[in-house]
């Protein structure tokens, strides 16, 4: 542990009123109590590490508001069916709702190729200079916007990187977030990745066409979702058969109308 040059301390003290907190009995690497005055000056910083992302996300949000475009951030584990759901969704809403897609598929252009066939403008994002292939950050979205003609776009859908962890932490300036959860994943995914299910506005429970072949307990899955995010809408769909699409499409259209006022 010490070879990594840091230590975790779990000396968080919680008051009964749950309002204030302080640390105590801090140990140094040597194991003794810390002496603050021994030739060091402590400087208060109090800054969020992801400040830069939040600032850029705010900038994006202002831009989208300005352009009168509704932005949907679509997230899930790898392979839950984001691209398939998008392909089918776009086929239903185009050309009434003029759409465009930004897709974060790091290694291939497969998803972009598939989505291009629907006739909508597609921007493929290849790298994330923030240091990983694990999420789309706000500044990456900002760069991807340059080639898009927002005069002719009402809805921008961002297909995020397949990952239930990081994308939940990075605001990109979107108006709504949905998470696709397929019935081939464990029922307890919401409990294991609570932040994702907290930050999302709706769940698409996908691949329901496979239910007859699985032992999946859909009621348990829905219960977990409701425990993490009480009241969140869950749309049970099959991107393959388009079962359940009506409710999902209604929700999407209503969300767009609520922002754009038409």
């Amino acid at each position, binding site marked *: 542990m010490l070879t*990594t*040059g*840091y*230590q*975790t*301390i*779990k*000396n*968080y003290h*919680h008051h009964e*009123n*749950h*309002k204030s*907190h302080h*640390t105590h009995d*801090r140990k140094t*690497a040597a194991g003794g109590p810390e002496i*603050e005055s021994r*030739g*060091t*000056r*402590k*400087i*208060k*910083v*109090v*800054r*969020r*590490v*992801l*400040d*830069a992302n939040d600032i850029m996300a705010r900038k994006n949000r202002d831009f989208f508001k300005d352009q009168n475009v509704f932005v949907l951030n679509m997230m899930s584990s790898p392979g839950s069916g984001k691209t398939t759901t998008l392909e089918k969704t776009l086929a239903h809403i185009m050309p009434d709702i003029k759409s465009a897609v930004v897709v974060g598929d790091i290694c291939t252009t497969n998803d972009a190729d598939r989505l291009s066939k629907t006739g909508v403008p597609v921007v493929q994002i290849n790298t994330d200079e*923030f*240091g*990983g292939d*694990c*999420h789309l950050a706000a500044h990456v979205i900002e760069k991807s916007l340059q080639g898009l003609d927002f005069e002719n776009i009402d809805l921008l859908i961002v297909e995020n990187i397949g*990952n239930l*962890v*990081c994308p*939940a*932490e990075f605001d990109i300036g979107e108006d709504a977030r949905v998470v696709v959860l397929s019935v081939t994943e464990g029922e307890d995914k*919401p*409990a*294991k990745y*609570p*932040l994702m299910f*907290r930050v999302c506005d709706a769940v698409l429970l996908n691949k329901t066409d496979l239910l007859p072949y699985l032992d999946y307990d859909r009621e348990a899955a829905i219960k*977990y979702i*409701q*425990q*993490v*995010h*009480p*009241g969140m809408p869950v749309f049970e769909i099959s991107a393959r058969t388009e079962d359940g699409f009506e409710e999902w499409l209604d929700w999407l259209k209503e969300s767009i109308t609520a922002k754009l006022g038409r």
Partner: protein
Amino acid sequence: MHEMGVAMQIIEIATASIPEDMKGARVERINLKVGKLSAIVPDSLGFCFEIAAKETQLEGAELVIEEIPVTARCKDCDNEWTIDSPVFSCSRCQSGSIELLSGRELDIDSIEVKED
């Protein structure tokens, strides 16, 4: 997952926080607050930080991570409590209308700089 990016941000913010009269001094410790809902893995953050801090003012600095629990307030009955399982409804009245008070932090609280 994106610990290297986070380590680099920490270095940027910490470096910018060193007072004018201490420019060039060695940073001994960086105190972080990391909420339990945050995706950061302390071990890999420490590892990435060590690499990223090489040949900077922060080389060899210790990252001290204080873990912050998830706390919430109920919008219906004003109850405040600590969430320690993935159930986000009020511990008193069961309402789902809640506001998170803490648990999402990824903050640099302070830095400790060596005085000569």
